[in-house]
């Protein structure tokens, strides 16, 4: 479970301080399927980065299963990113010099403890499930956007995370492919009980989730305008 307590995030540009997040309180329970909806510049991505331990808040606390993340060392935070959360980005963020399979295997290389499964078997299984098994030896820049995003989701899942964050996962895809990806994320939540948080500016995308949170100008609002 992830809990945000009074999270603010300020950016200093020259002498001016801009608050991107202004006191966010939020709880995401295990097994939820949440959509965070906001226009560009609303702070939704920053919120996701803070929840996913990629960024640190200026003030406030992030509790991961009750533990204060700000008190964790770089090593412990990295380990949580490795095992507890998975990320899916709008830009896919795959490493083009590695093959599809190597990209999916990458988190396993940074695993500290011995894994209870064979990472290679699991990676191939995920690729098969997502219909890109035959692309396993291709470079990411040689396959379609939909296939790249499936690779990214497979990478997010290889370590069996409790929660998957998807930042505009359909943003770079056509409508049909986008729908497929959303269906895939939905399935993850329904069939495997993975907590899924989708950050988007599209109402249609947010609608596919079970719970929607609206964010505007760095604050959570009750109604999306």
């Amino acid at each position: 479970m992830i809990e945000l307590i009074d999270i603010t995030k300020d950016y200093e540009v020259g002498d001016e301080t801009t608050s991107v997040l202004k006191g966010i309180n939020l709880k995401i329970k295990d097994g939820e399927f949440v959509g965070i909806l906001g226009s560009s510049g609303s702070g939704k991505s920053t919120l996701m980065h803070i929840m996913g331990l990629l960024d640190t808040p200026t003030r406030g606390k992030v509790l991961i299963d009750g533990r204060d993340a700000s008190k964790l060392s770089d090593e412990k935070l990295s380990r949580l990113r490795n095992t507890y959360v998975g990320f899916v980005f709008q830009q896919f963020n795959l490493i083009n010099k590695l093959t599809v399979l190597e990209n999916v295997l990458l988190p396993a290389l940074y695993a500290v403890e011995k894994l209870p499964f064979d990472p290679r078997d699991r990676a191939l299984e995920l690729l098969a499930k997502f219909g890109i098994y035959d692309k396993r030896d291709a470079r990411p820049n040689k396959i379609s956007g939909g296939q790249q995003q499936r690779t990214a989701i497979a990478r997010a899942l290889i370590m069996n995370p409790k929660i998957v964050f998807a930042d505009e996962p359909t943003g770079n895809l056509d409508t049909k492919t986008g729908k497929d990806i959303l269906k895939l994320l939905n399935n993850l939540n329904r069939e495997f009980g993975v907590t899924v948080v989708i950050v988007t500016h599209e109402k249609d995308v947010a609608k596919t989730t079970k719970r929607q949170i609206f964010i505007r100008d760095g604050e959570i609002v009750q109604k999306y305008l």
Partner: protein
Amino acid sequence: MKNLFFLVSSSFDDFKRNKVRTFLTSLGIMIGVLSVVLLIAFGQGLKNYIKEQFESIGTNLVYVLPGRIVGEGGGFRDPGSLGAKFEEKDVLRLKKVENVDYVVPVFEKSVTVTAGANREISQLLASTHEIALALNLEPEIGNFFTKSDLEKRAKVAAIGPKLAEKLFGSKDNAYGKTIRVSNQSFKVIAVLKSKGGGALGGPNFDTITYIPYKTSLRINPDKKFYALYLRARTDTNIAQVKKDAEKVLLKTYDKDEFQVVEQTEFLNIITSIFSVLNGILIAIGSISLIVGGIGIMNIMYATVTERIKEIGIRRAIGATKKDILFQFLAQAIILSLSGGIIGLIFAFVIVFFVRQIFPAEINLISVIVAFFISSGIGIFFGVFPARRASNLVPIEAIRYE
């Protein structure tokens, strides 16, 4: 750190993608290691060469010299005008010293030797027949002069092989011919085997003219000697011989007028001078290693900048700062070390060929030094770019385009 193999293989993948860049970068270290290892090898070679020269004369030689040539601190001193001129009596006295096989008086002078129309500068060495035994001189053609030649004041000479070639065209031609020194004629009764020397400004043993000292009265009228050579019995205590010889000479001479020096003392002084020179050369050569290291640092900064996004991705999926640090550090070390190893291989090849003419030598120390220096350079110059990589904020790195 978790997976050394992964670190190494990812570095090699990167090298494969940037072949030219990798080659040029490690070239810097390669040249640096090559020059330092070669300088060490040639320095060692020089020491070996000098040692061989001394050993060809024999290490159990003790010299009695006028004045104080070797200073208290171990360096050469100007002997000045002060100093003894040794006499025949000294030879007889020193012969009584225990464990001494031969005592030979030496009169030395630089002379012009003529044979027909040919003239050559030669070092004239007037002594007894025993000098051949004291200095391990062996004739290649003919026989060295004998005791009876000495007593008969025979006008005979034994000459070095190079001198023979210069004066007569060949060693065989020289035998039995006449040479003229200071208006005196000498018959060449022996041409000696080559002993080498002469390189690097040292004495050339192959152009010396040896004559019996009693024959050389016109050249050395008062029968005074510049030096006395003592050949100690093999495996005796040279220090004791030295001490005994000093005791004998002190009866005749003041302690500042002469000095008894053993072969190894000369050797030590000469090698220590060359060691200093060689050390300076190596220090200069090391500059190229530093330049090579800066090249590595430069390329590693470029690599880190190119891969900021990748670093962000790796951080996002669980790589720690340390993982990133080691990844880039490993790359710098491999780059530097492989340059070092290639430099070392080239050094071995060059030394292999040079050894045909000069006893250069790559010892274990220079191999170890090459390894440590090149990996040390990788660490030192790689750590700054690697730290920059590891300290990137993950989310900023991942957004970097």
